[in-house]
């Protein structure tokens, strides 16, 4: 499936405060809306940059320390940019028992990155996450918006290739 490399234009640039304007006008001074504010900002920019957090804090009337405290508490928030595709390998109980560790190791090997890291071509970021609630299909991983279940380490390379597009994933490995 041909996919245009959109790594740079999927998210807004942090110098473009347009999305911040929209978010602030949507939530305005709504009580307790800090988390939705950050969620929408992350959806727009791909991650929470310091500049964006300062803008949101100032305009919505929060202390930066509060905003930062909330942003670092919840796993969903990223303070660093990610690649085009975020790979989340589930390490819930059922997946753990079904061999999630081997899946993470295999993805790690295939892409040449460790957990939390992004591939040099900015295509993939690898994360281990907690239970995604699809336990009957253990072990599972989510790539972007797609869920892949009943994984075997042998099938990982094929799945990753689906997303490779013009810049293919690590070619060097065999098997």
């Amino acid at each position, binding site marked *: 499936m041909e996919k245009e490399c959109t790594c740079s234009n999927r998210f807004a640039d942090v110098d473009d405060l347009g999305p911040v304007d929209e978010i602030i006008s949507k939530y305005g001074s709504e009580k307790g809306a800090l988390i939705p504010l950050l969620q929408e900002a992350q959806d727009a920019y791909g991650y929470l940059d*310091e500049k964006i*957090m300062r803008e949101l804090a100032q305009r919505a009337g929060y*202390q*930066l*320390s*509060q*905003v*930062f*405290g909330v942003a*670092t*508490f919840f796993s969903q928030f990223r303070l660093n940019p990610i690649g085009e595709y975020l790979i989340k390998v589930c390490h819930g109980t059922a997946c753990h028992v079904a061999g999630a560790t081997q899946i993470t190791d295999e993805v790690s090997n295939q892409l040449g990155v460790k957990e939390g890291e992004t591939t040099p071509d900015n295509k993939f970021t690898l994360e281990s996450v907690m239970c995604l609630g699809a336990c009957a299909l253990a072990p599972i991983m989510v790539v972007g918006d797609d869920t892949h279940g009943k994984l075997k380490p042998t099938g990982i390379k094929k799945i990753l290739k689906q997303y490779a597009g013009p810049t293919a994933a690590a070619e060097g490995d065999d098997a």
Partner: protein
Amino acid sequence: MTNGRLEVEEITVEIDGSKCTAPKGSTILDIAKANGVDIPTLCYDPRLSPYGACRLCLVEVEGARALLPACYAQADDGMVIRTTNEKLERIRKTLVELLMSDHPMECQGCSKSGRCELQKLAERYGITESESTSTFAGETHEYEMHRENPFVMRDYNKCIMCGRCIRICREVQGVGVYDFVNRGFKAIPGTPYDKPLQETPCEFCGQCISTCPTGAIKARPYEDTGRVAARDMLRNACAYFKMSEEDMMEALGLEGWVTRTTCAYCGCGCQLDIHVIDNKVVEITSPLMVGSGQGNLCVKGRFGYEFIGSDERLTKPLIRKDGVLVESTWEDALGLVAEKLGEAKKSSPDSVAVLSSARATNEDNYLIQKFARAVIGTNNVDHCARL
């Protein structure tokens, strides 16, 4: 309303077998303290809202489905409370052991020694240094010390996550420099992006220092000067010999101790405890819940004392002769001033302006404006507060 006093509803509870009355709305800890019952705490500070996180103050309440934190739980009329028994003491000991398992064992070299709330609890539960490192040996934090500004130093390795620094900065100061960062074992009460305090709204009031129960937050001016070494040694000696600091001072023949006075920087009237060793001021603190300040200080009260022992301080009046300031006597200096002011009074009183200061007492300020108006004959009087 009788006698102009507000009627407050009273409740009666039973603590450790004794009946106590207290105003409705009191917490169990409030009542215990008012009745001399000692419940250990760490995250409690009377100036701050209760937090209920350290779990040291857990007590048994009849009918409750779990242990309740005394600092947080509101007492109800008829409550039956036990503040100590074997189970509670065992839990408290475990909690202190857990805290110490992630705490650097540096009491010898730590200036908080003797005043550290964690150290006091360790002594209370008979936990020795060697025991604490072996019972729950495990991962400890290794944070870098924060010494980026001249006032506040932070050592998160000693932090016990009581959150008092966060609460005092937010609730009392209204600034909110700190908040918890990260989650779980990795959480600390830090600044955004771990920025140095000078890059945050911090006003360097040092309130976080005043509330921190351990040596995690300390005041740099009190740590970095040579004379502090004497104070540290004194403290450690007292802890080792189990003597009070007064007795130790006497034994060592050192003069001076703690003098209580009122801060002269403004009209609030906060109380200061000036700690003196060998005739040198080594620290300023404020007694908790005393007077108008209630134990709070600002940057001036807390740090603005260095002028007292400064080498740059004048000890003799100086008169300018041939463009150079030369030491003189009070007689000569005052004579010169009286002469010049006398001339001005005759020829042009309004060429004189008198500036006064909040650091002077009300009485002095009254006199000085009288001097300006009645003696010199000018209305050019002003005060530093307006500048």
